[in-house]
């Protein structure tokens, strides 16, 4: 049983995690045109890279990513490489997750960007633990998703719903127009964000640590482990 747990944990960390993060990086910039139903791939704007850096800093500060466990001089090179790839994937997944919930252009794009920057910047100086950070991020992305894919897309809707009429009445003289995307865009964004939050849960220290904390022991030469009673902790547990 224990062997399966170890193997599954390794599969989770070294294969499933980077796959999930890269899928977020792929889907975060994908839109579907409302008229032609064609794919539109939007690379992450510069502001999302900045947001991803701030978010990465939050991950480290809150302990969601323990850098000394991910990258360490006393770990095998392969482990360091796989962990580094996962961290790079996390950076781009974060950028694309923001890209997914940011309006593509115009005043709303800058307003959303500003609010994200403001939130992440003020959070840098708050006391966070991993669980609180994950909750906070889930709420942040959920709010942005609702604002963009339900409210703002309602404003952009070509048939013009009640929200569009209300906004045009209230905001006379202010141009609110943007690219029209098919409803599939919202579904893709939802899936990408759900996957991103799932990947963050996988990355959290609690899920990657073994259920039984490894305790390195010293075994006398020639004796079997069953007989050994001299147990001393030598190193911190690795993945």
């Amino acid at each position, binding site marked *: 049983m*224990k062997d399966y747990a170890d193997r599954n944990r390794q599969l989770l960390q*070294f294969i499933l995690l980077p796959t999930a993060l*890269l899928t977020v990086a792929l889907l975060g910039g994908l839109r579907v045109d409302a008229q032609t139903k064609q794919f539109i791939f939007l690379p992450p704007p510069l502001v999302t890279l900045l947001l991803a850096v701030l978010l990465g800093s939050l991950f480290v500060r809150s302990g969601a990513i323990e850098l000394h466990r991910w990258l360490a001089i006393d770990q095998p090179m392969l482990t360091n490489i796989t962990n580094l790839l996962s961290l790079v*994937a996390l950076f781009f997944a974060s950028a694309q997750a923001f890209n997914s919930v940011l309006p593509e252009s115009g005043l709303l794009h800058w307003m959303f960007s500003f609010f994200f920057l403001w939130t992440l910047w003020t959070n840098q100086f708050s006391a966070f633990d991993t669980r609180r950070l994950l909750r906070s991020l889930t709420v942040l992305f959920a709010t942005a998703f609702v604002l963009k894919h339900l409210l703002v897309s309602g404003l952009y809707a070509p048939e013009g719903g009640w929200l569009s009429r209300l906004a045009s009445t209230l905001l006379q003289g202010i141009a609110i127009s943007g690219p029209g995307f098919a409803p599939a865009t919202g579904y893709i964004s939802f899936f990408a964000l759900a996957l991103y939050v799932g990947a963050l849960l996988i990355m959290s220290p609690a899920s990657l640590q073994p259920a*039984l904390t*490894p305790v390195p022991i010293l075994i006398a030469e020639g004796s079997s482990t069953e007989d050994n009673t001299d147990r001393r902790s030598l*190193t911190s547990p690795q993945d």
Partner: protein
Amino acid sequence: MFVVETGVNGMHQTAFPYPPYPRGTDKTLQMFIIQATMQRKLIQIVGIIWTAVYAAAIVWVYATEPRSLKEVATNTQVAAGVYEVNQEKFNNGLMLFRRDQFRAARDEWAGADPAQKDARTQFYIAYAFYREGWGRIYYDHTLFKQGVEAVNRAIMLAPNSSLTVDDPDLQMHTAAEVKVELEQGTEKSWDDLNPLGVFRKRK
């Protein structure tokens, strides 16, 4: 003395350090340690390769910007070097071209070469733009400009940027000739006012 990392219940999880193990170590334990280490390394290597391939595929998708799943498949064929023009559609286009149904011919050729990677097909598309846009009194500049784009693609795709098509039904056989005709058609000059222009012939 050597170090073995083990669970608190005495079950072994990860093996440190690496072989060779000292004499007297239990053989079963040694085998278990080696197996666990090899399995971990294998999963890590597979993970690295898979991550690199997947990341490269994502970069490629964003670079090529396919507009549909069909285009993804076509781009994949091009990248793999197995892309081929649909000959049946190409022949249909040629038949329509010879009947002066240029727009329909272009549609067929667009279907035959969706990735726009075949020099000969792009040459014919440019030729169809030329013939449709040609007029005794004036040239259709919009069609001629599209023709220039198509012939430029043909020239870029041709080996050594030189393309010759041996088709007896055509009066221009090289991409360079078609390009010159199309470019001259898009330029405005005093010759456009020459009444003798009505006697010119379409190539």
